[in-house]
């Protein structure tokens, strides 16, 4: 035993340098493999974000070197009437769009889930808005809402049916213009919700529905107590992702309204662009975009915590 222990000890000591060497080699290999990712993360995420935060503390004007001004950009925007309108518009635009996408996405998933025939065809069809170029979507919706008869789709149809005496200028009022951009954003985004929910619904075991039916649950109760809890995680993820994409949206509003009429549809991205590129005030332009970051971080942290807690 002692001998064998001695032999083992000798083997151990003989193996140790080898294992240390191999461990070092493994670490080296790991670092080598991780390096491209590290460079990408630092180069494409950490540095630009650090640079943006730094610029927001400066009075950077295009073509001039930046000077540190502390929180002056944040204070300026806090007191700026237009920025307050921008915050309000961004919230309305984001919440309105996400709520519509959630409801119609859920409806789309329920209908497709209950349909076996042509399901794949319809799934593909519903994905069309998601894969169409945003600029095309925005131009199309702008045309749909145009108020001149013979040009705007809705007005032409309503006038031809005799339901209207005179065309409605949908985009001429703040409410109408906001509704128009929300509709365009909703139309582009709801298939993402629908396809995600459909996939999640298909993963809910059929036995659960059967058990609920045996217990006397009707279709509404089955939806409420089986389907919805089964979709909880995917719903949170889709809402969070869509919230981030929508609050950062630029194309639809820029193409459809340019933030108008007046500043009625001006949101973070379009106002930031205006200030940074037209007024050449980069520091302030970046600050506009950064204003929403704390809100997004809080949202992401809360949702992640919730998801992880549920998993545990």
């Amino acid at each position: 035993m002692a001998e064998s222990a001695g032999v083992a000890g000798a083997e151990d000591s003989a193996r140790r340098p080898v294992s240390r060497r191999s461990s070092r080699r493994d670490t080296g290999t790991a670092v080598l493999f991780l390096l491209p990712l590290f460079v990408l993360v630092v180069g494409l995420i950490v540095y630009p974000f650090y640079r943006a935060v730094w610029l927001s503390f400066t009075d950077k004007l295009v073509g001039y070197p930046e000077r540190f001004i502390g929180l002056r950009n944040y204070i300026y925007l806090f007191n700026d009437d237009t920025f307050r309108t921008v915050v309000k518009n961004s919230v309305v635009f984001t919440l309105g769009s996400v709520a519509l996408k959630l409801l119609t996405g859920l409806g789309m998933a329920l209908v497709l889930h209950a349909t076996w025939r042509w399901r794949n065809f319809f799934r593909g069809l519903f994905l069309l808005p998601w894969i169409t170029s945003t600029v095309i979507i925005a131009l199309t919706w702008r045309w749909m809402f145009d108020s001149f008869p013979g040009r705007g789709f809705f007005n032409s149809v309503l006038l031809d049916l005799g339901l209207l005496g005179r065309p409605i200028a949908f985009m001429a009022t703040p409410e109408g213009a906001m509704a128009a951009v929300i509709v365009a954003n909703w139309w582009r985004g709801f298939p993402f919700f629908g396809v995600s929910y459909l996939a999640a619904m298909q993963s809910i075991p059929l036995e659960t529905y059967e058990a609920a039916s045996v217990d006397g649950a009707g279709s509404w109760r089955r939806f409420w107590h089986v389907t919805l809890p089964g979709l909880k995680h995917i719903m949170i993820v889709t809402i969070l992702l869509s919230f981030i994409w929508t609050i950062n949206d630029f194309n639809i509003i820029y193409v459809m309204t340019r933030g108008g009429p007046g500043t009625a549809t001006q949101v973070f991205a379009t106002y930031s662009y205006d200030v940074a590129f037209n007024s050449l005030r980069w520091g302030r332009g970046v600050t506009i975009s950064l204003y929403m970051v704390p809100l997004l971080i809080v949202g992401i942290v809360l949702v992640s915590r919730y998801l992880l807690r549920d998993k545990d």
Partner: protein
Amino acid sequence: MREARLSRRTFLAGAAGASAALAVGSRAAAAPAVKKGTSLRLWILKTYVEPTNKAIEASAKRWAEKHGAAVSVEYFTFEDMQTKYVAAIENKSTPDVGQLETGAPARFAGMGQLLDLTSFSRQIEGEVGKPPANVAPVTVVGGKTYAIPWYIMAGFWYVWHDVLAKAKVKMPSTFDDAVKVAHAVNRPKDNFYGMGHSWNRTSDGYGVMQSLMYSHGVGWANKAGKYQSIKTPRMQQVMKWATDIYKDGIQPADTLTWTGSGNNENFIARNIAQTSNGPSITFALENALAKATDAKERKQREEALANHVALPHLAGPDGRRMWAIAMSFGIFKNSKDPEAAMSLVAHMLSPEETVRVMQDSYGQFAPVLDKARTAAKEYFNKNENYRTFGRAAEWFVPTGWPGPVTAAAAEVQASNVLTDAPAKVIIDKWPIDRAIEFADKKIKEIYDTIGG
């Protein structure tokens, strides 16, 4: 090849007169030297009038062929002009030569991006002549010349002659006349409106707002280019005109939402009787006629062309002052070969090249240098509309009138505050005083931070 060149020259010299011919000769002698194989980047504006874009590109290519050099032509549009220059400045990838709009020389010179062209401009003056006194200050900053003026792209007041004749109203000459005409021809039940003018975020919006202000004697800067308040009774008159046209029902309800081409489309579609626009409307109508496929279509389009009238931009109680886009050429400090860049600019500014570009411009391109203007006289004598186009420089006033164009004045225009002010009254139902107060505060803040 040489013979062909000479014959073209002879032809153009005939059109231009003796002065142009002299200019060509002297330019050739004084043109800056160009090394063989030189490669330049030229940025030019892409307008709605496609033939003009091609003509400018062709002019640059002719220079390249002549000197055994290369020119890579890149376009920017009105929409992405700022974005493209801003990105290039920050990335230090500015072109050798760039076409600059009214406010750009002041802005870019202030950033130290442009080469001082004071002595080169004197050389050009000797060869092609001077720009008019009202245009020259656009390219001069702090007594130094940073760009060479080329042409003016102005907005005119377009009306349908037959519509006005039917209503027995006179052609409008002032802003107030235009409103009277609009009331007289307005037929909202038929979806036909007396006027279509948008306070949008394009030059159709902020440009007309400046013409309206300056023609009422209102400027946010004084003669020295320093801030002055716009909280005046005259500005109230300006705002009243700007907002009443929306309240009176003489414009389509969605006019404020029109983007760049909304007014062109609605005028050409005969949904409105009057609008402010550049000669791209004339281009569209002439182009449509050229593409007519049968006799009936041809007749209709001929009538439309004959019926559309481009009037001088409207005057106000203080005179006729028309804001316009004054295009110039600047050479960026980053240029690897400034001598070649100057040679290219001299080539493009020569009366013969200017006239060649202008002939493909449908009146949009009104040259400003003396000899080029002389050479352009015959072209602009084509009809009454063209005669009006040819006078663009006469009424021109720059951004920041009555002062010089400054970086702060250019930012006032770019910040859209001038059109946001009437929009606040029209959309948000603010009282006029509050909207003026809002605009004045924004303008003062711009001057306080940028200087001036």
